């Protein structure tokens, strides 16, 4: 998994490529913890995300909780397979998917 990070004033866009699973989720969590400061708009671009496990979903959930306090969060370019997992798990009700 690779994370591409782009910051534009208070807006942070993270583009995730590859698999977000139990072995890679901690890396994303670290990246997030280091960058939350001053972010009011967090965007996850998932166009190149191939797979997400429960560990990855938990990172998104905790990011959502953090952003609820300091701004907003959006998930964009969600592919069909990832969307199916969001639907099955009920994440479509929690995340702002655009």
């Amino acid at each position, binding site marked *: 998994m690779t994370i591409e990070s782009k910051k534009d004033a208070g807006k942070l866009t993270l583009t995730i490529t590859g698999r977000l699973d*139990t*072995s890679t989720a*901690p890396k994303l969590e670290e990246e997030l913890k280091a960058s939350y400061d001053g972010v009011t708009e967090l965007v996850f671009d998932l166009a190149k995300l191939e*797979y997400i*496990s*429960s*560990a990855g*979903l*938990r990172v998104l*959930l*905790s990011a959502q*909780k953090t952003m609820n306090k300091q701004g907003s969060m959006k998930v964009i370019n969600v592919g069909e397979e990832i969307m199916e*997992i969001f639907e*099955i*798990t*009920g*994440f479509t*009700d*929690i995340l702002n998917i655009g």
Partner: protein
Amino acid sequence: MYQIKGKIDTTNAAEFEKHLMAAKPAVIDASELEYISSAELRVLLKLAKAVGDVTINNVSNEVYEIFEVTGFTEILNVSKRLKEINIDNAVLLGAGANGRAYRLDDERIVKVYNKISNPPEKIRREQESARRAFVHGVPSAIPFELVTVGDELGMIYELVDANTLGSVVHNAPEKLREYALTEKLREYALRMSDLMKKLHSTEMEKDTMPDARMTLRLWADIAAKSDYYSEEDMQRVYDLIDSIPVRNTFIHGDYYPGNIMVQNDELILIDMGDASVGHPVIDLLGTYHLLSLTPKKNPDVAMRYLGMTAEEAVRMWDILIRDYLGTDNDKAVADLEESLISFALIRSLGGIVFSDVIPEEKRRYFSALIMKDLLGSIEKADMIIKAV
């Protein structure tokens, strides 16, 4: 079982209506229904008005979509036809009293439920609870979907490729034995306590999960049905259960090292069958029972269900409960444990009735002892309720 099948249109709708309204079924099987017309929907609406609650099972994906688009899923209890899974080539991961688990591929397992102890509504409740827990951030496996496996029901879960917490603590290399018994055990006991505190402060939406006292009532019901206990004593047990305050926070219901996996250093809970909401004492009583009371009384069985020795289990409980209660005062901890005993023994009252390790002639004798201990500490029961 009332079945609807084939194709209903304007030419035979009248006949279908006559037949259906004469039978007035509350449950309809749609396993052979591939299409549904507006004429048929109208008749079903009429039936719903006449009968009240109408359930339609085994609906195909296509027909379900029509129900959904037309808003009928709000009027009728519609449930989808389940996918069939073949496990001939799947590797058996483990088997327990409730069923078996098979590995389907690198990412998924299927848990197949024994029919006798698992009515469909219990499995659906587990699915619902597992989903709710997951979206509230409870570290657990993704519950994917309900399926059929032969004539049994199964649930596809995400594969948690890891060892149980019990075996992680127990199976340290020989030269690290001392370390494992001290530092590692301590670390995991504290992490178990942390996770428990997190679970017990996770608020669920109102009326979306079962009341955790239900499990205790089931144990008490089993006890009451036997002739081991007097009605007056059982009444005191039921009163004790009713005295547990209602809360809307998460309860796992079977929180012990055999149900906690260590995956990439993250603790993941498995087995959501008893997930519910309620007062923390209901989780604590189970953990106390399995980590302390049972290993002390029956050291030989600890390895079998905990993956760790009785000595390790008892030490783990002691560290966990001190951290959870936030006290290191020996007297305070001993008092609170005694207060927990009444609650913990409710499980034993029912458990001994059909125990397969204790011969029948001894069960009556033991059951009297359990009831005596339970009633003996019932005066103190209030302490733990107030402390957590």
